[in-house]
């Protein structure tokens, strides 16, 4: 994960606070150890029984904030999704869309796609996460499994440039068709202009000091 230096996020000025020497590393989200707790063990067991290639397809299992995340290899995503939906012990009937996240620091897995799943039968939630490199940002589409993902995948393509292979009409949805760039990526600037008020100038939000 990320690493922070200093305390206030100030760059390029002399350190007068004495905090500049601090180094803080973000929490590591390594794979969780069994038992996972709650219903997560049941979900993992049922998936493993129904899907013999579990160990190859699932890169890691993360338990955080009382939520289960399965990191899936993109080649296996559709297979895993179908089993999660169709197996009566799992029956995740609903996929609540896909949310993209851009981590420019994670070389080779810059773009993540996060799929929250919901089982109405068992009243459970889990999350699938797929990561792909920026240079090859292809993820198989889940529209054939959950048709409701259609617009969500278009939005994630629009905002992050993740290409969902097999999507019937992967076009921009929120931005104009001829828009250049993908706005939610971290390398896409927010924009904005400095505002002057009574002699003082306030920089645009993206130019302001970031406290980390």
């Amino acid at each position, binding site marked *: *994960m*990320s690493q*922070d230096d200093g305390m206030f*996020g100030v760059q390029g000025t002399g350190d007068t606070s004495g905090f500049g020497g601090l180094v*803080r590393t*973000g*929490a590591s*989200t390594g794979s969780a150890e069994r038992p996972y707790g709650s219903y997560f063990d049941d979900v993992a067991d049922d998936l493993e029984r129904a899907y013999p290639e579990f160990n190859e397809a699932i890169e890691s299992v993360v338990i*955080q*904030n*009382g*939520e289960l*995340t399965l990191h899936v290899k993109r080649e296996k995503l559709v297979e895993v999704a179908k089993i999660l939906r169709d197996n009566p012990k799992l029956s995740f*009937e*609903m*996929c*609540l*869309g896909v*949310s*993209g*996240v*851009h981590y420019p620091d994670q070389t080779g897995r810059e773009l993540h796609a*996060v799929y*929250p799943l*919901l089982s*109405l039968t068992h*009243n459970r*939630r889990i*999350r699938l996460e797929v990561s792909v490199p920026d240079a090859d940002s292809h993820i198989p589409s889940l529209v054939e499994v*959950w*048709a*409701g*993902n*259609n*617009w*969500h995948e278009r*939005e994630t393509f629009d*905002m992050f440039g993740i290409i969902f292979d097999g999507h019937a009409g992967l076009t*921009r*949805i*929120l*931005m*104009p068709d001829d828009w250049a760039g993908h*706005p*939610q990526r971290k390398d896409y600037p*927010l924009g904005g202009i400095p505002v002057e008020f009574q002699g003082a100038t306030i920089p645009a*939000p*993206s130019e*302001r000091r*970031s*406290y*980390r």
Partner: protein
Amino acid sequence: MTFDPYASSRETTEGRVYSVTGGDWDELSTEIGATKEERVVVNMGPQHPSTHGVLRLILELEGETVTEARCAIGYLHTGIEKNTEYRTWTQGVTYVTRMDYLAPIFNETAYCLSTEKLLGITDQIPERAQVIRVMMMELNRISSHMVAFGTGGLELGALTPIFFAFRDRETVLDLFEEISGLRMNMAYIRPGGVAQDVPQDSVDHIRQACRDMRKSFKDNETLLVGNSIWMKRTKDIGYLDLAGCLTLGVTGPILRAAGMPWDLRKSQPYSGYENYKFDVITTDTCDAYGRFLVRLGELEQSLRIIEQCCDNLDKLNGAPVMVADKKIAWPAQLSVGADGIGNSLPHIREIMGESMEALIHHFKIVTEGFRVPAGQAYAAVESPRGETGVHTVSDGGTRPYRVHFREPSFNNLQSTAAMCEGGMVADVISAVASIDPVMGGVDR
């Protein structure tokens, strides 16, 4: 050049000659009428008064029948998710409240629940704050459903419901103003609790409003339930059964009108909903009329919950409304100036005159905000339109790394094609009105 019947009279026999018989017009004119059906593609919106906001519908018609319906959205895209990445976690509330502007409290609550999950303080939220959240959400559900009835009726040509509906909505908005200072987009729910306590006499006003609304809801009920014109416009219109709802991820009144008693308040309670007595309203007609009945039934259930909240507020009078952790809680109450706004005077006296450290902490909490442990979380609430889910990612800093809203309007609008294709043009209006999309939420 080829043979040109007009050239002799025009004397242009050399060079290229342009005439109405050139090109492939001959071919084209013989093709006209080759197909029997007459297809028209109609562009409805984005400035059409019946499309529930800046929604653009592209309809392929065969006579009066819709053969294909597609939505074009994005006309109200404001980049709220991107903007939150440049503000503190507390300021994020002010942004997300403007997404689904008819259900601001739900956006705020979902965002705060997700943030609190990341902070690990879900079970430290004071009980009074949770009661206030529930009460505000249920009041908001009433005001949102009122717009669904009012504008939905208006779109179908029924002019009276909106007067009844907006009269009752006004009652709720007045309560919002009394409690939070604002009628819409209040930024009232904050990570850790709520911005300020409910004024003491407001509880009585809320009780009175509940009594009034219970009577005045009858106006729309008696006007529309069983009304033959209303039934003809909504019964069996916009049909979407349970299988369709599941595959399209449709939640909320549409799902409950398909017979599925799925309500996150019951199935996955948050903010203490498990302590309230209320029913999940369902119908099994899968049509626009069923959705109308579900919304109508939910009004009464919301009133029931609000009345229980009022009793709880009386019991918890004076209890804190913000988490005890001073690093997360907003440093001062904001409703205590002479004009009802501003920081509390004792707090200002303390930070300006008595404690340098208090001033430093006030400054740091207000400008920097608090740090949120790295990770991701998803929290969902049952908004008037379905599941509002918030996926937040933190990198450990004072600003969100990513905030994504799973907006029910955005998702449910996908079902337009399934509901409208094969029906009449006029029924498109009815179907879209029954989805009740809010374009601010769709486009974000």
